[in-house]
């Protein structure tokens, strides 16, 4: 399969001398087209930073970032779904979903067609004229997802998108995301601190831990379909947990 994005020996640090704070060190990551990969690690381990390096929002201080997606009008077809949605509260749902389509020279009609399609994918067509404050947490996160899908990304980066949701809504959205992924064949890189979520969703789980954070290991999940609490994954869970603790740190996980 073709590589869509790659991190080679990426390191990131701020400051210099004794004040130097090292966030990431020597991180390698390969993403193949159509793959669903989860990055798993404790809170504050630099998982979100890794996504931002890929998204070109943060410049790494060492290593190479390669993204095999051609640029169109200065933008690559990749999109980020934020933790807590981060909608723009002064825009209605439709205008929020259209945010990434503005300034591309698209016609109004094209924009609204793509916005409607994206909102339809996340099941929010009926809420198109609502303000963000009128939505539930799950609905807001769906709009965040629609905003990302509207740019028709080849690579979708998701930063703990379901972390703040209640368990039922989270499970629903996880299943919808899997359906969406199997329909659209997009490449997804999904950051989470939840082992079960990572194993349930992804083809591969990349464990990122330590300070500075390094890739501690990479685990393939059993062939799909995945079940929740799948007995096939019990061993995998304990292997991953062992890998996380190898680092000698206290790690705080939801299990």
């Amino acid at each position, binding site marked *: 399969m073709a590589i869509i994005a790659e991190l080679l020996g990426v390191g990131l640090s701020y400051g210099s001398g004794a004040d130097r704070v090292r966030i990431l060190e020597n991180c390698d990551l390969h993403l193949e087209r159509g793959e669903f990969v989860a990055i798993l690690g404790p809170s504050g381990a630099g998982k979100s930073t890794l996504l931002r390096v890929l*998204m070109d*929002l943060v410049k790494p201080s060492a290593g190479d970032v390669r993204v095999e997606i051609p640029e169109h*009008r*200065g*933008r690559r077809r990749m*999109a*980020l779904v*934020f933790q807590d949605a*981060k909608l*723009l*509260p*002064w*825009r*209605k749902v439709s205008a929020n979903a259209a*945010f*990434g389509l*503005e*300034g*591309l020279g698209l016609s109004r009609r094209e924009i609204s067609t793509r916005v409607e399609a994206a909102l339809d994918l996340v099941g929010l067509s009926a809420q198109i004229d609502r*303000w*963000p*404050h*009128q939505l539930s947490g799950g609905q807001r996160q769906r709009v965040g997802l629609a*905003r990302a899908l509207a*740019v028709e990304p080849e690579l979708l980066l998701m930063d703990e998108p379901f972390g703040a949701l209640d368990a039922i809504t989270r499970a629903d959205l996880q299943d919808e995301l899997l359906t969406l992924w199997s329909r659209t064949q997009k490449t997804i890189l999904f950051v989470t601190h939840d082992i079960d979520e990572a194993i349930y969703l992804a083809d591969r789980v990349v464990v990122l831990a330590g300070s500075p954070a390094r890739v501690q290991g990479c685990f393939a999940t059993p062939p799909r379909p995945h079940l929740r609490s799948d007995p096939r994954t019990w061993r995998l869970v304990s292997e991953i947990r062992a890998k996380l603790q190898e680092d000698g740190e206290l790690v705080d996980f939801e299990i």
Partner: protein
Amino acid sequence: MTLAAPTRSASRVWRGISSFGGAATPHLLAALGLILFFTGWEIAARLNPSLSALIPMPSQIPRAWLDEISGGYWLAAVRNSLSHYLIGVAIGSILGVAFGLVCGVLPWFESLLAGLVRLLRPIPGLAWVPFAILWFGLSSTAAAFVIAIAVFWINFYAAFGAVQAIDRDLMEVARAFGHGGFFGRLFKIALPAATPGILAGVRTGLGQAWMSVVAAELFGVPGIGARMMQAASLLATDLVVVYMLTMALLYAITDILFVAVRRRLTAWQS
């Protein structure tokens, strides 16, 4: 028993007042307060005829107001003052908001202006009156200039503070979706996100500007302030009060218009 009786009847009266009209009660009380104020004033003025040169009786005001209107002075003064007010407020608000926004979005620009702001900010708008008269004479432009300076600072700080208070993550959202350039951050994030804060500044400016209108006109630029000075020099205190009330009226009208506009612009807030 005898002591408790009046208290109980008073509380019954009070309950009567507060149940009367339900939600309208505060308005009724406000009207009552006004009536009490003017009645007290009228009585005090009538009991002390020697004060008549210093303070008018409220009962004289409507007559004086009507005379002033029929003489054509009132409308001319209001028209003059309104034109100073509107031009000064518009220029001061637009420039203040623009500079405040750009300072909020571009840290280097803010640093560049920081010293200048610290130098000029403490100088009140009225301290510019000598220059206003030197540069523009006793003209409408001079009055508008002084008003604009006072309004500028209010709006500058309101807009700058509002941009500083924006959730930084929204700027990252802008960058992630291809709007990370200066104009993208300014028009797609800073301006809409700061709108409530900017409008609060505009509203303060609308009120403060009336103060500057009077002050600027006291120096002789025709308008409400100048007319008040003329009236005071002739001891026509009733006319002074007419124009004080006129300003209160004009302020109330601008504020009502403002609130209507704000409701449209910030419909997205819960």
